[in-house]
């Protein structure tokens, strides 16, 4: 036999054994069944850091204006009290100056007599 005959013999067309296609399909189906599905982990809201961050942000945002308002009211009250004390102090000053002036006038009249 020549070399060409050997090659031709080796590359000859052969039919698959009986049931080959069914076996391949069955194997493919089995592999598909085994393939793991991706796991979806669902965490409760209270275990999500992002949820906490959002809640904290909302709380702070709600508290800041209230706190600022309270601070402003207190500062206004403090200023009002300081202003009231200032008026009182200046009234007392005016009265004392007036009294001193009267004493001086009285003393100078007595001197003149």
């Amino acid at each position, binding site marked *: 036999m020549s070399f060409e005959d050997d090659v031709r013999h080796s590359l000859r067309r052969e039919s698959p054994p009986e049931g080959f296609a069914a076996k391949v399909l069955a194997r493919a189906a089995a592999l598909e069944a085994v393939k793991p599905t991706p796991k979806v982990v669902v965490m409760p809201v209270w275990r999500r850091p992002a949820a906490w961050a959002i809640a904290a942000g909302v709380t702070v945002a709600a508290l800041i204006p209230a706190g600022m308002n309270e601070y402003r009211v207190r500062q206004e009250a403090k*200023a009002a*009290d*300081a202003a009231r004390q*200032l008026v009182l*102090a*200046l*009234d007392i*000053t005016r009265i004392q100056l007036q009294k001193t002036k009267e004493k001086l006038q009285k003393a100078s009249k007595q001197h003149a007599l």
Partner: protein
Amino acid sequence: MKKLIAVIALALPLAAQDGFDFSRLDKLGANTDNKVTVTLDGDLLKMAAGFLGDSSDADTKAIVNSLKGVYIRSFKFKQDGMYHEADLEPLRAYLKQGRWSRIVEAREDGENAEIYILPETGGRLAGVAIISAEPREVTVVYIAGSLKPEDVAKMSGSLGIPDLGRQRNRLRAPEKKAAPKQEED
């Protein structure tokens, strides 16, 4: 070193009250409940100036802004001799120092009034102090700042301060709910 720290520690409160510790005068009022104590300095004075109403003119606001400290101690007693004249001596000793000068001293029937000024350049005053001692009343006034002699008279009056009572009530009592409106017939 410890002595230096102690001196600085003692000096700081005095510096904060413009050179004299006015709480030293509080013992004058040990025998009375009829007292007025005013201590306004630094930030409190600025706050008071900021609170002056719109009706206050620019001059008044400028005067108040130029104040550095306002201290008042005023005590009234039910009987004669309920305070010690000697308790005023620390203040008198302080006012004898430096450039302070006594411009008025009036004595009459057991009553004594003194006015001290601290002159500044340009005919202005850096401070005014008044000591008034009567048998049943003693008053100390101390105003520090850059003042013209006529400024004190200008400052008297309401200074355009809005109704303080309403503001204080707003703080003390929670706002009452508005009464339901009665339907008009």
